[in-house]
Each structure stands twice: as C-alpha cells, then as structure tokens.
C-alpha cells in the first residue's frame, strides 16, 4: 500500500529549502514589527490587562522567548536523568523500524535500486533479520556482518552500509557522513547497555565495535559536533546503566 518510488534521484530542493534564510529573516522582521506595534499601541491605545506587568512593552515577547529557551534547555538536561535505551522495557520491536533511507543507499558503489523501503520490503527485511538473529546465536562474531547481509539482501543486495568494512565508502561520499552520524548517535543510544546489542542485531543500521570509524567520521564532516554532543550524552547514559547493573 505504501507508495514508494524506485530510483535514486533525490527530490529536487523545494522553495522552503532554497529560502531558509528568507524565512528566518521574515521571522525576525515580523518580531521587530510586533515590538514596534506594541510600542505604538502602548501610547495610542489602551491595553486590557489583568496584571500590571502585562502592560509593559514587549512583556509577552520576553516571556515567549525566555520560556521557550528555558523549556528546551531544561528538557535537554532532563535527558541525563530520564533517557534510557529504546529497549529499556524489553519490548522494543527490533525490526519495526524501516531502515534509515540515507544509510541504505546514498552513493552506493553499484546498482542500488530503491531509496525507500515500502512495507513489502520491510516485511522481507524482517524475515531476513530473523534469520540473521538465528545465525547470531551460533556465531556471535558474525553479528554485524549477518545483519548487514540481511539488510543488503532486502535492498536488492547493493546498498552501502555504515559499517566497519566499508569505511572507505563512507569517506568518499559527503552525504553519507551525516547519515553515518545519525546512525551512530542512534546506535550509541541503543547499545547503551552493552549486553543489548544482541537483540538489536537484525534491524536498522548499527555501528558497533568500530572505534576507528568513530574517529574517521569526525574528520569527514564538521556536523560531527552536534552528533558528538548526542554521543557524549548517551555515553554517559551507558555508563549509568552499566553502573546500575553493577549495583544489582
């Protein structure tokens, strides 16, 4: 049912993507206009307020801005306290997530066929993932390989995975760096309690057991900054979890 296109060409950039700066300038412009309007109204009109402070010029502007920043930054800190691995309750549907479209194909060396997996593809990848997990049981070393095998099969056997063996591909293609970071940050969070990596085996793209690549990726692109933020946060998480394990 889920309609998806075959082919690699990303959709051309839209008006929104081309005019980000215009939009930002627009927002700033409206904000300035509102403040001016507020100032004019302060002297010309009569404000109906419940509390005296509401009548101050720009009170709501300050409240809006400060509340928003305060909320987001507080919530960000809250992560340290409340964030756990997606399988914290032991009910993560390992293969429920479709593979990250970017990490699946972009810039593959050979004939990749689809950018997006539809539901059919998904079901297929799930079955493959099961197989992969069974194999895992026997030979745990194959962990990463088998999962990637399952993935590539479901994608027409041609995709590039963010994966230890394929480091070079990652370096070649600019875009992949970003997706690598995405995948990395997610996998960092997911594999936070190290023991769980087993259950994650089959599903999305994971970058385990490869410290080298970690560094390489940082070299590739400077968006690493934000990702490394995430990374360090989830690192801390992982330690916390480990400690919990210890304590128990």
């Amino acid at each position, binding site marked *: 049912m*889920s309609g*998806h*296109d075959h082919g690699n060409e990303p*959709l051309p950039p839209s008006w*929104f*993507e081309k005019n980000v700066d215009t939009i*930002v300038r627009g*927002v700033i412009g*409206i*904000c300035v206009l*509102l403040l001016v309007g*507020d100032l004019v*109204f302060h002297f010309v*009109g009569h*404000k109906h*307020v419940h*509390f005296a402070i509401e009548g101050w010029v720009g009170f*709501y*502007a300050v*409240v*809006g*801005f400060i*509340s*928003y*920043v305060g*909320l*987001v*930054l507080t*919530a*960000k800190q*809250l*992560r340290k306290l*409340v*964030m756990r*691995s*997606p399988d*914290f*309750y032991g*009910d993560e*549907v390992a293969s*429920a*997530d*479709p593979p990250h*479209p970017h990490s699946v*194909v972009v810039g593959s060396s050979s004939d990749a066929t689809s*950018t*997006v997996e539809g539901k059919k593809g998904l079901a297929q990848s*799930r079955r493959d993932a099961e197989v992969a997990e069974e194999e895992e049981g026997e030979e745990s070393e194959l962990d990463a390989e088998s999962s990637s095998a399952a993935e590539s099969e479901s994608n027409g056997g041609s995709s590039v995975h963010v994966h230890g063996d394929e480091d070079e591909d990652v370096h070649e293609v600019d875009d992949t760096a970003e997706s690598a970071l995405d995948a990395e940050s997610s996998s960092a*969070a*997911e594999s936070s309690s190290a023991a769980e990596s087993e259950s994650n085996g089959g599903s999305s793209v994971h970058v385990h057991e490869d410290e080298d690549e970690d560094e390489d990726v940082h070299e590739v692109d400077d968006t690493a*900054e*934000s990702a490394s*933020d995430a990374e360090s946060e*989830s690192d*801390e998480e992982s*330690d916390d979890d480990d*400690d*919990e394990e*210890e*304590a128990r």
Partner: protein
Amino acid sequence: MNELAQQLFPGEILLFGAMLVPFVKGKLRSALVVLLPLLSLGHLLMLELGHDATVSLAGFTLHIVRVDALSRIFGIVFHIAALLCCIYALHVKKALEHVATLVYAGSAIAATFAGDLISLFVFWELTALSSVFLIWARGIDDPERRERAYEVGMRYLIVQVGSGVLLLMGILLHLSDTGSYGFDRMALDTSRGAPFIFVAFGIKAAFPLLHNWVQDAYPEATVSGTVVLASFTTKLAIYALARGFAGTELLIPIGAVMTAFPIFYAVLENDLRRVLAYSLNNQLGYMVVGIGVGTELALNGAAAHAFAHILYKGLLLMSMGAVLYRTGTVEASKLGGLHKSMPLTTFFCVIGALSISAFPGLSGFVTKSMIVSSVGEMHLPIIFGVLLFASAGVCDHSGIKVPFFAFFAHDQGWKVKEAPKHMLVAMGIAAVLCIGIGVFPGLLYEYLPFPEVAAQYHAYETTHVLTMLELLMFAGLAFVVLMKLGVYPPELPAVNVDSDWVYRKAAPEVVRDGYSLATYARLKAWSAVVAVRSAFLRLLSVHHQPPRGTLGEPWSPSATTLWAALLLGFMLLVHYA
C-alpha cells in the same frame, strides 16, 4: 420519526449500528460507517434542550438521557470526531476496527448524556472495553508487534478498568451517604464516595502521575486507532469533571501542573505520535484549570477548548497517521523533507499546529483565551504565569517540532505518495473546522454551556491578538536561534522514563526478585550513588585528556586568579559571618 427519536438515547444508533458492520462488505460497509455517525448526529440535534428520559432496571430508575447545554456540546463534538475517524479509517479492511470505533464512540456519547452515576458507570466501562481493541488491532495487522500490542493493551485496560472500579466504589459510598445516585455537581466532601469518583475521573483525565497510560497506549494503536482513542476517553473525563466537580479549587493546581509537566517530555520524545500524546496531556491541563476556576467564563472556556482540541488534535494525529501509513515510521529521527512528497498532508498538519498553538485566526486562539482570561480575572498570578509558559511550550512541541521534523528539517530522502484520498478528506474537514471556529467563533459560542456569557466575550481584541502574536513569534524566534546555534536537542530514539516506570520496571523487579520495598529503595539509591561517583571519576580520569577533558583544558592565569579571589572571599565571608 420524531417519536422514535425521543425513544432512542444518544449514541444508541452507533452502538447498535456497529453490530451490522461485520455483515456488509466493500463499498456498502464504507457507506454504513460514514452514515451511522451522521444519522446519530441528526438524532441528537432533534432532541431539544431539557429533554430527559428514564428507564427502570432492576429496581433502579435510570436517568439515561439528559440533554442540556453542557452535555450537548460534548455530544456534538463527539459525533463530529466519530464521523472524521470513520472517514479516516476507510482504508481498513477488517471489520474489527470499525466496530470498535463505533461502539467506543457510541458509549462515550451515551456516557455524556447519562443523568445518573449508574448509567455513567456502565458506559464508562464500555468505552474502556471497546477502545482496547484499537490497540490490539495493531498486533493483528503486524505480527511483529503482536506481543508488544498485547502488553500495551493489557496495561491500558488495567488502568481503564481500575478507573471504573474506583468509580463504582465511589458511587456505592456516595449512594449510601447521600441516598442519591444522580450525577450532579458535588464537592470532595459531599460524601465518602466523592473523592473516589474524583480520582476515577482523574485517571481518565490524565492527572499528573496518573497520566502515563495516555503516552504509553495511544501511540501504540493503529494508524486510525490513535486518532479515535485521542478523541473520546480523556474528553469524556473532562466532561465528567465539569459536570461533577466544577469549581473544585484543587483542580487549579492540578491543571497547572498538567499544562507544564508533560511538555518537557514532549520536547525529548522521538515518536511524534507520543509527542502529541504528551501535548494532549498539556491541553487537558488547560481544561482542568478552567473547570477548577469554575466561573461561567471558565466553564465556557473548558467546554469550548475541549471542542476545538478534539478537532485540531485529531487533525495533527491524522497527519502523523498518514505519515506512518506511508513511511512506516513516525520517529522524528528518521523523518524529514516529507513536504515535497506529501504537500497536502503538510498543509493540514500546519493548520493543526497553528490551531493548537493558539495562533490568531484559528480555533485554539478563541477557546484557550477564555480559560486564560478567567484565570486572570481570578487574579492567580502564578497559575497565569504557568499557563503562559505552557503556551510557549505548546508552540514548541506541537506547533513547531511535529511539523518541522516530519515534513521539513533535513531531507531524509523519502519518496512516498501523498496520503490516500479518504484521509485527505478527513483532514480537510478537520482543517476547515479549525479555521471556521477561529474566524467565526460566534458559531461555537452559541452552543456553550453559558451562551449569554460567551456572547459578551470578544477574543479578537487588539491587546489579546498583539500579545499572543508576540508570545508565539518570539517563541518561534527562539527556535530559530537555538537551531542556528546548534543547541536544539537532537532527536534520539530512546525511552524516556516517566511515571509508568513504577509499574513497568520497579514493581515487576520487586516481585520477581522478591525484594522488600526497603531493600529495593536502598539498591536504587546505591546505584544512584555509584552513578554519581563514576561520573565524578570520569570527570577526573577519562575526560582528562587535554583536548576534550573538562579539567584538562589549560587554565588561563586570569581565570585562576579570579577563582582564587572568589575562594578567598568566600572564606572571609564564612569566617566573619
């Protein structure tokens, strides 16, 4: 015709009509599920204000229908929601979901018009029993999720039925104390039963710490199931609170916490339908505050906000449902750039987002402002401040985060089809209603519990429009600034521990490992100590390397001098103070 209408109770058409659904197929079934809510709405509109009906059952005289302004407005919006949900779910092939939707909507509507506590209890329980199938249906559609769907459904059912049991206890105690089982305004000290009834309503209205079933269960339902679930149960509880506990001051702080607490989680959450479940919780907070304030303006506001909320929340969830339907995920970390392939869905989602943010010209603006104004009139500065803070918060998680990360943000390379036609139709109707209420608030105000008070209220007053625009635009500006600075928290797939930790993690561990509660608390405390210790050690050792380490950075002489001076100054203070 009219006589027949008088004999039916509202919702009856849906309850019994649902029984026909499994027996028809294809287009006929589609026609039936759309026709039933329309018929039922027509029936409701034929009943006049003040209409009452009773039935005798097992020695009780049940006041099964009471049509007044309060029950009518909830009844009308429940019907509109049922209609939208039925249209939105037309792609569903199996009868189960359609039947569950119709029975659930029918019982919520019947509960709204129940004039006594016993009929309320019956329909209250029926909403719980019918709605759980919308969660389990996900496990039927998708065998991979079977176990998860089953467990979520069971947790949901336990909470819902728990609320029902408390309600029953409350009713029985109330009956023995007062001799009446009429469902009228009461206070917490009216009877020994009243507090139980209050908590039973509170569970379904997602009071703080009793709230987590919403975020646990709603995002786990099917594409259309989540829209259905989000429309009825919690708003039925809001209705029940407005009917039973209007003016109970305890509700004001409870509601204020509800507006502020969930938005922190909404910022962090990655599953966009779960973000909306947290934001639903926040919106309920406004209504609860309004009910607590209890003035005519406030009650009008609560009812109006519930009306508008059902529509824009439904719209937002429908747009996310369409995304889930097309891409197979609603995780912000995997989405982005969908405005190119799903432009109409994007447009509808933005309408919903602006409505929930209370942008002037849209429904949230003309309804939320009544509640905020009533708080202002009561001169409750702290509550007023919390509501303003929460307004900026709504602007973040529902107004910006949901549309931005799903449809804009970073193009993730999705190439999918636009949402199916029937979904677009349902979203379109909801969007038109959101705009319609925003532009012509008078149409809604006529149906409020106190229409004469509502007629006096003018939402579009210069001060109000200006201040609200300022609040929202500067919140938007803050988002731009945070994004540009790169400090906006990245979307990460994770579980954020909330109050359900108590029954999903702690309680099972206590039972499984046979700890006493004291031992368990000690263990948890110890692990916290270990965590702090190891964090400190890490600060000293792991991050000690000069380039990254917190303490590894070279200290400038001026900073060292400053710290030394501060330390000496502190010692002086301590010494002479």
